[in-house]
């Protein structure tokens, strides 16, 4: 009797596994554009009307396996920076040189992780202070103040485009810390393709209507 029961359980399990393999795979039904996600987050205490000027890095930080590999300015990087400038201008922000003390600073990063395994974005924020140079923004000796929010639930195995907006205007008043007031993240197939740079940045701004100032 035991043998029959065991055979029955095995047969049922085999059938269940067979059925399970009949699943329609949602990933096969996605285009590269559909595979991408755009996440934006903001500091809820900030009103962007209070900021008028900004500056942006001239190259992109390449962060691989939680280490800053260096700065790059590939076609993709240049396009991203250019589209961010255009979008910021459309929202009323004026681009000025870093030396002219802008209200906002914008960091752009390409994050890639090539090792086997899964890391989460809180790890990225843990290293945040070591990726960026406060001297670049004219605040030597200051620390960064990563946002209290994070992309925590989204685990990553590959790459993502990350854009962070820093509050330079109030850095001194924030106990000598440069506070991050807006973050944007793009992930998915073809995220580093130069042809997608425009749509990625536009997506960030479309879903952040509060990102505007008055002239």
């Amino acid at each position, binding site marked *: 009797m035991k043998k029959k029961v065991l055979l029955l359980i095995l047969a049922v399990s085999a059938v*269940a596994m067979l*059925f399970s393999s*009949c699943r329609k795979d*949602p990933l096969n039904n996605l285009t590269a554009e559909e595979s991408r996600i*755009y996440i934006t987050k903001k500091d809820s205490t900030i009103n962007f009307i209070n900021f008028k000027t900004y500056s942006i890095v001239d190259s992109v930080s390449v962060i691989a396996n939680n280490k800053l590999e260096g700065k790059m300015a590939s076609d993709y990087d240049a396009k991203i920076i250019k589209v961010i400038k255009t979008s910021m201008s459309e929202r009323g922000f004026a681009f000025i040189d870093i030396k002219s003390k802008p209200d906002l600073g914008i960091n752009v990063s390409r994050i890639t992780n090539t090792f086997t395994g899964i890391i989460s974005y809180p790890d990225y924020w843990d290293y945040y202070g070591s990726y960026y140079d406060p001297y670049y923004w004219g605040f030597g000796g200051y620390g960064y103040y990563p946002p209290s929010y994070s992309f925590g639930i989204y685990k990553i195995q590959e790459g993502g485009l990350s854009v962070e907006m820093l509050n330079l205007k109030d850095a001194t008043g924030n106990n000598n810390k440069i506070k991050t007031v807006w973050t944007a993240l793009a992930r998915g*197939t073809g995220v580093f393709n130069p042809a997608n740079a425009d749509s990625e940045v536009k997506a960030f701004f479309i879903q952040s209507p509060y990102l505007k100032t008055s002239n």
Partner: protein
Amino acid sequence: MKIIFSYAALSALIMLVCFTAYAQKPEMRIGYNFNTPVSNSFKNFISNTSFRGFNGELAYPVNNLLIGVGVSYSDFYQKYPRQVVATKDGNISAVVSNSVQTIPILAKATYNFSKKGLLRPYAALGAGMNFVQYTHYLGEFADAKSTLKPAVQGDAGVNIFVSELRGSGINVGASFNYLPFNYSETKNLNNWGVHAGIFFLLR
């Protein structure tokens, strides 16, 4: 509630094992089924009807009853256009795809209302466990959960005998699947479906 399900499943399994020992000529059923979500909780996640379904059943005759085990499979899937979803601190723009596979494995008791004639209606009740694969995709990024939950099924239909001598024919019917589930916003996977297939005696 879980205890009731567990006892029901265990009792049915014990009955099955006991009857298996001496019963003769087990009946086999295989068929196709399509199922549609009925609860708002499930419909909010996936409202599309699943047309990817199969079922199988092995049962032993005991008087007017058939006692056996049945397994069925339904693959529910729905893709939503790109949308911006508000989160606590911001927004996520993504094409959302939802996917659920239910595989109830049930101990079943089927009552045949008639022993004669070409058309023989029946009603069945099943209880057991449901293997669930749940996946919520934002773009290509998945939030997945696999779990085993209780399951109860009510089934009614008619057996159309093609060969009474061989005990084979066509089966059509409808079933309701009560499938508790609790993950994220989805509280259950209740659905009803229509099935059609063949049955025959194993010799």
